[in-house]
């Protein structure tokens, strides 16, 4: 009599938790990171790259993908500390972005990670050339909730 609701509750909890762990990221909780790292591009989640990548990215801000994105020393430290503390290899479990990533590799782009490449391999190369898509780094073009950490595959809409 009471078994069905309990089973349903467990099912809902498990389904919800696994979907959350798989496709969503916590919101960025540092105001400086939010402002500075989203001034020119989407606010990328720190869980998508390992600590060593964030160190290299922040050290190279003066030549950041062709732009001078340097920050004053205090902000540089604050941003790096937050990114490292929330990196893919921070914490106990580790993010799925570590999957198949060689220990010697220091990817400078999220789109270079084996996990990202695997998740996008079925897309035709033509898609990335569309002006509506712009570039691989414009996550929110297809993942509309990307800026708030929602990457659920069911909500992907690829523009024409």
């Amino acid at each position, binding site marked *: 009599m009471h078994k069905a609701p309990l089973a349903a509750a467990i099912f809902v909890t498990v389904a919800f938790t696994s979907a959350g762990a798989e496709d969503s990221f916590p919101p960025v909780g540092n105001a400086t990171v939010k402002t500075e790292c989203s001034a020119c591009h989407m606010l990328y989640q720190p869980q998508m790259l390992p600590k060593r990548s964030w160190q290299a990215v922040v050290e190279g801000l003066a030549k950041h993908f062709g732009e001078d994105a*340097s920050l004053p020393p205090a902000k540089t430290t604050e941003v790096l500390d937050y990114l490292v503390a929330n990196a893919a290899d921070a914490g106990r479990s580790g993010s799925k972005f570590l999957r198949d990533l060689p220990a010697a590799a220091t990817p400078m782009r999220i789109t270079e990670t084996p996990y990202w490449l695997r998740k996008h391999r079925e897309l035709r190369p033509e898609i990335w050339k569309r002006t509506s898509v712009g570039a691989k780094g414009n996550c929110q073009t297809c993942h509309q909730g990307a800026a708030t950490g929602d990457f659920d595959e069911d909500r992907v809409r690829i523009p024409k």
Partner: protein
Amino acid sequence: MRKPLTILIALATTMFAGATLADPARDAILAKFAAEAKAADPGFTGFSAARGGAFFRASQTGGSAETPSCTSCHGAAPQDAGKTRANKAIAPMAVSKTPDRFTDSDKVAQWFDRNCKGVAGRVCTPLEKGDFITFMAGQ
């Protein structure tokens, strides 16, 4: 400590009256650049919106090949939104459209520092920065 600043602000306000949309924070930033411009050149007589507009539109060498001008990202019309190389919108530079432009001195310093290097391959002079803000405040 307070008095020279007050005098500077008063001086700046007089100098730029009519040319800019008034904002105490922006006036203070302009006053600081005016003092620096005066220190660099005793013949400095004030900022020029016309010079600032020409600087905004000018094609520079020495910076990144992809961004030879302020307009490369900000667009030709200060009243319109620009676009970063990563495809993100930039709020219009014109103060009439984005009223809080040039009111945060740290932000002003940070972005002039980056973008002057990216566009011109060097830091901008106090005169160029003051002219630029004066131009945008009148747009």
